[in-house]
């Protein structure tokens, strides 16, 4: 059970080594080092699986954790001691997250060796992807907010580089700049929160924050009038909103699709965007203390519903998936907000799996058909059976169809949201959270199946100018002739593996996920019993172990997770039966809504009995199409007019006025003085010169002209005469 540097470091370091090697010698390696990147991810997957094995199969109690630190640097001198410690903090959540991240990353690496095959940015892509994965793993495993922030920003940098990898495209530049800046807005507030926490509590390690909450150290502290807990919780959540693209800061995610698809699969679907949810989960006790959970829930609800509405009208396959990621993230944030800690985390995992799979299958479509616009696709079912199978599985999962993982996690969130909105005695306005949640679920089902029907079913609109209707294989239409997809190890295998994990049974141990039809018996509700909101009182004065030390206790005596029928609801007052009834109603409602969504999509796109949305309410669809005008509002109004205007004014002020008057002004003053003195000098001197001594001057000139005879001897004489006269006068 000992976790020395030896078996934890490879998880983060092996991808970093791959990054370094690819960065410097990438072009020289065969296939530009993509096998090296995939291998390094596989190594970190192995090690994280080992951790996963220890924790999950040894099913430790939710509050068992391993916390080892080392000193990064210390500034202590004389009396005041001040050190910055770094370390690892592993508990059940970390173990699950590590495995998920490295597993999904490995499959995506495998897929992208196929996808990026003859793309000229192949080398660069395989340099940044491992760096990103190591940053994500580092963030997951780090024990304090400061090192989390460091990895957080490195992830931001990798996403910046991957979005902007096709430097030729101007739009890629805009997209990467927008992505980095919007996330930077969030990160800056996160840093502020970390600084505030650090300087009041003395350390930002999770253990210390939980202990401080338990001991009530936050009581009196205020920051600029706001209570410390609320201030820091809000700052940290702002950071999370930036990174997880929640409502006000969501504009960057859809544009992030400029990057290569597997890149956005890993970063903008599976891992990075969930970092915001991760930090909210870790800091959940602080959020509760600062009582901003209602705010989180509302933001989540708005994002979930808003993104779903926009997704309905998108034509580009990747855009649909981007908006669906936005809305699923909204659901996770709702989960955190309403207090269903366990379901939120489960949704993170399930979403990562099926969204990665969706993106990869979209990638395989785009790569083989070189076309992203859905209206130009269609009827690919015959050509790409494996991709179709994987995509269908994931769509079923995301739409919330029973027996699938999406249903399990989303339904629990919606159930808790229902309880939170109506039964938990919150103020009535918060009821919109479940309403928007359920509405969003319906829309999700609708737009996901719309995408499926448009791409895979109906007639193939590929050779649209193909006059004689039905396509006949490799007809005369030129360009993108579709070849039948054979079972390519690197293209389809990752998809199929991922689609296998979209089944609900993995996570809930019961077919429907509600414990109604138990598959492997009740004890296998493993996910629910392992992951719980951190109980802060356990962390009071918990001794710190340095990296060298090993845990004395034998594996058997470690605190085990005992299966008790918990609701997984960490909300303020868990009255059992109310939650249970909320869950049952929630489950029924979400099933009904999911199927209606699918049915409408079916009618609209297969049967074509209802004509598509655009005709019904055109005004509304156009607003949806340009994303509620958020983008141009941000760009044109805030950035262009506000910021740049202000800057141009300031720089004009700085150079034009301040520099000219305050500084060069002195020079001007001198010039004036100089002129005045010159004028004074000429006037006064000339006046005297002219009237009084005119004649004397002429005489003087005459004498001077003679004296200047040029004869050396004459000068000598003058010298002697002057000397003599001097001696006479001084009378030595």
């Amino acid at each position, binding site marked *: 059970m000992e976790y020395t540097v030896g078996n934890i470091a490879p998880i983060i370091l092996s991808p970093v080594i791959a990054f370094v090697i690819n960065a410097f010698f990438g072009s020289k390696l065969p296939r530009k080092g993509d096998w090296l990147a995939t291998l390094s991810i596989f190594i970190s997957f192995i090690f994280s699986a080992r951790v996963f094995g220890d924790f999950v199969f040894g099913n430790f109690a939710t509050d068992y954790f391993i916390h080892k630190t080392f000193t*990064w*640097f*210390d*500034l*202590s*001198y*004389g*009396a*005041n001691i*001040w050190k910055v410690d770094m370390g690892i903090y592993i508990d059940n959540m970390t173990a699950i997250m590590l495995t998920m991240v490295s597993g999904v990353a490995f499959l995506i690496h495998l897929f992208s060796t196929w996808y990026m095959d003859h793309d000229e940015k192949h080398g660069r892509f395989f340099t940044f992807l491992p760096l990103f994965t190591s940053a994500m793993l580092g963030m997951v495993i780090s024990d304090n907010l*400061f090192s989390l*922030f*460091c*990895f*957080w*920003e*490195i992830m931001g*940098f990798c996403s*910046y*580089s991957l979005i*902007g990898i096709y*430097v*030729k*495209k*101007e739009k*890629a*530049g*805009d997209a*990467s*700049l927008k992505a*980095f*800046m919007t996330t*930077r*807005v969030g990160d*800056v*507030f996160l*840093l*502020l929160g970390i*600084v*505030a926490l*650090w*300087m009041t509590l003395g350390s930002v390690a999770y253990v210390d924050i939980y202990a401080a909450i338990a001991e009530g150290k936050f009581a009196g502290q205020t*920051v*600029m009038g706001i209570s410390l807990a609320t201030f820091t919780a809000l700052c940290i959540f702002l950071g999370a909103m930036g990174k997880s693209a929640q409502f006000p800061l969501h504009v960057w995610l859809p544009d992030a699709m400029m990057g290569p698809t597997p890149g956005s699969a890993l970063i903008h679907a599976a891992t990075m965007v969930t970092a915001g949810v991760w930090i909210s989960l870790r800091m959940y006790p602080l959020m509760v203390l600062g009582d901003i959970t209602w705010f989180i829930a509302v933001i989540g609800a708005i994002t979930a519903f808003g993104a779903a509405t926009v997704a309905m009208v998108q034509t580009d396959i990747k855009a649909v998936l981007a908006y669906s990621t936005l809305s699923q993230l909204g659901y996770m944030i709702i989960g955190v907000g309403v207090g269903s800690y366990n379901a939120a985390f489960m949704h993170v995992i399930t979403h990562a799996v099926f969204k990665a799979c969706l993106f990869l299958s979209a990638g395989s479509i785009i790569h083989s058909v070189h076309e992203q616009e859905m209206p130009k696709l269609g009827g690919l079912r015959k050509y790409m059976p494996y991709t179709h199978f994987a995509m269908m599985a994931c769509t079923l999962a995301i739409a919330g169809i029973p027996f699938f993982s999406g249903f399990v996690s989303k339904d629990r969130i919606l159930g808790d949201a229902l309880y939170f909105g109506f039964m938990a005695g919150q103020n009535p306005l918060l009821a919109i959270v479940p309403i928007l949640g359920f509405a969003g679920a319906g829309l999700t089902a609708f737009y996901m199946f719309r995408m499926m029907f448009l791409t895979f079913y109906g007639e193939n609109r590929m050779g649209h100018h193909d006059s004689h209707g039905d396509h006949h294989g490799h007809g005369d239409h030129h360009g993108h002739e579709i070849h039948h997809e054979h079972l390519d190890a690197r293209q389809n295998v990752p998809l199929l593996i991922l689609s296998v994990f979209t089944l609900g049974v993995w996570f809930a141990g019961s077919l429907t996920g509600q414990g109604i039809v138990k598959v492997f018996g009740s004890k296998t509700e493993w996910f629910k019993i392992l992951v719980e909101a951190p109980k802060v009182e356990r962390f009071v004065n918990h001794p710190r172990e340095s990296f060298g030390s090993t845990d004395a206790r034998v594996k058997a005596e470690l605190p085990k997770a005992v299966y008790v029928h918990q609701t997984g609801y960490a909300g303020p007052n868990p009255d059992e039966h109310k939650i249970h009834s909320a869950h049952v109603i929630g489950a029924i409602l979400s099933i009904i809504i999911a199927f209606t969504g699918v049915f409408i999509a079916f009618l609209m796109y297969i049967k074509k009995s209802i004509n598509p949305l655009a005709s019904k309410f055109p005004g509304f669809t156009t607003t949806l199409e340009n994303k509620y005008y958020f983008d141009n509002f941000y760009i044109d109004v805030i950035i262009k007019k506000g*910021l*740049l205007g*202000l*800057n*141009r004014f*300031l*720089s*004009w002020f*700085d*150079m034009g006025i*301040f*520099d000219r008057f*305050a*500084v*060069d002004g002195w020079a001007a003053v001198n010039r004036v003085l100089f002129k005045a003195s010159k004028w004074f000098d000429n006037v006064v001197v000339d006046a005297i010169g002219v009237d009084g001594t005119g004649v004397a001057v002429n005489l003087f000139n005459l004498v001077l002209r003679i004296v200047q005879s040029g004869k050396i001897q004459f000068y000598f004489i003058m010298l002697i005469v002057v000397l003599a006269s001097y001696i006479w006068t001084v009378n030595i």
Partner: protein
Amino acid sequence: MNGILNWILWLPVIGMVGVILTPKAKEHTIKMVTLVTTSITLLLSVLLYLKFDTTTADMQFVTKIPWISQFHINYFIGIDGITMLMAFLNALLFFICTLSSWTVTKNLKAYFALLLMLQSTVFGVFFALDFFLFYVYWEVMLLPMFFLIGIWGGENREYAAIKFFLYTFFGSIFMLVGIIALYYASGKGVDSFNILALQGGKFVNEQVVIFGKTFSFETIFFWFMFLGFAIKVPVFPFHTWLPHAHVQAPTAVSVILAGVLLKMGTYGFLRIAFPIFPQAAVNASTIIAVLGLISVIYGAFCAMAQDDVKKLVAYSSVSHMGFVMLGLAAMTTQGMNGAVLQMFNHGTSTAMMFLMIGVLYERSHHRWIVKPDGSKGYGGLATKLPKYTTIFIIGMFASLGLPGLSGFISEALIFLGIYQKFTTITVIAVVGLLIGAAYLLWMFKRMFFGEVNPEIEEYEDMNAREVFYMIPLCIAVIVFGIFPSPLLNVMKASVGQLVDLLSKY
């Protein structure tokens, strides 16, 4: 081994003499002589670093020789933690600048002679512990800078050179008044010019009468010293000389100007203004913090609106030095250490930015991101110059403050330092950090992304020499970003001592 400081101080002068002696025609030997001198100085400074004992806070490698004995002025030099970093940075930057000015053509001999003279005077300012010696070096340093900008500069270089000279000179006059006042106030005794002896708040309750009104000695002369150093830093109201000087200065000179010369201002605060007038410093800390904050925000906003790359980076230096001032004003362990670390990190990262602009300037001979007539100056550089882009990215993200690179550690420390005392300032300064990222990345986008601009068609990528002199900076930026302890261990003793001194008031 005690004489190593003298060697570092006087080796550049020997080099200069060597350069002057080589005939004008043999340009290659001139360059070689300068290169050899600067590389030996670099080796010596590395040796100095290895021999530096990080436990004690007092001066090391001290040399004290009576110079003008009537006034008890002696040639008194020595270093402690803070100066150790600056000495190493100085040696490193000059070594790199010699390599980067390989393509200078206009009367080469004078250029390299002045460069070496500048190096020795900068070493002098950092090592001098005697006020007189400090002031002499402070003034002499202006001379080579004036000529380097005035002769090898850009279009209206005379204006910039004169403005630079007069502005700094104006400040140093006030400093001279301060020095003389201290000389008399300490009773013209043996140690009246020795900076170390004057430290420790000896003049807390002195009074001084000026034009009939009595002032507290410390406050008045703190503000005199403040003015002298603030102009050099540059702090907000006194910063307008920097953009002019940077835009007109040749690449190597503006690297040195940004890399080392700005740090003399803050070094002045750390060595002279704060320890000698601790009471006044503590009283003035709020004002300094506010000024620092304005520099940060103002610098960042102005940088955002610039169309000239060099002016943009110049304003970014104003913003970064504003952070250093904030760190100094905080007077806490984290704040001070952060400030000194930021001095070093800003030195390396801005040097990289200026060198990269220089490399580009050598190819394009103009510095416009967006030309005055609105057309794009550059565009699509990333596709044409891949090596250049990667190094540019490292430099840019270092000065942006991306964790994992050196810029972040110091900025984080400064934020930690100033939080307790100036909470509102921290919140606003965070915006500066944000805008800092904005203008750099926006510039990066406008220059590097998009279709290849026809103008930059025939630029060729960086040659071996240019890559060679960028490597040390890249390594420094990355290595000190991941483990900053080699830098922090050196400075924490002396900074800690200063913080203890200031905490007593």
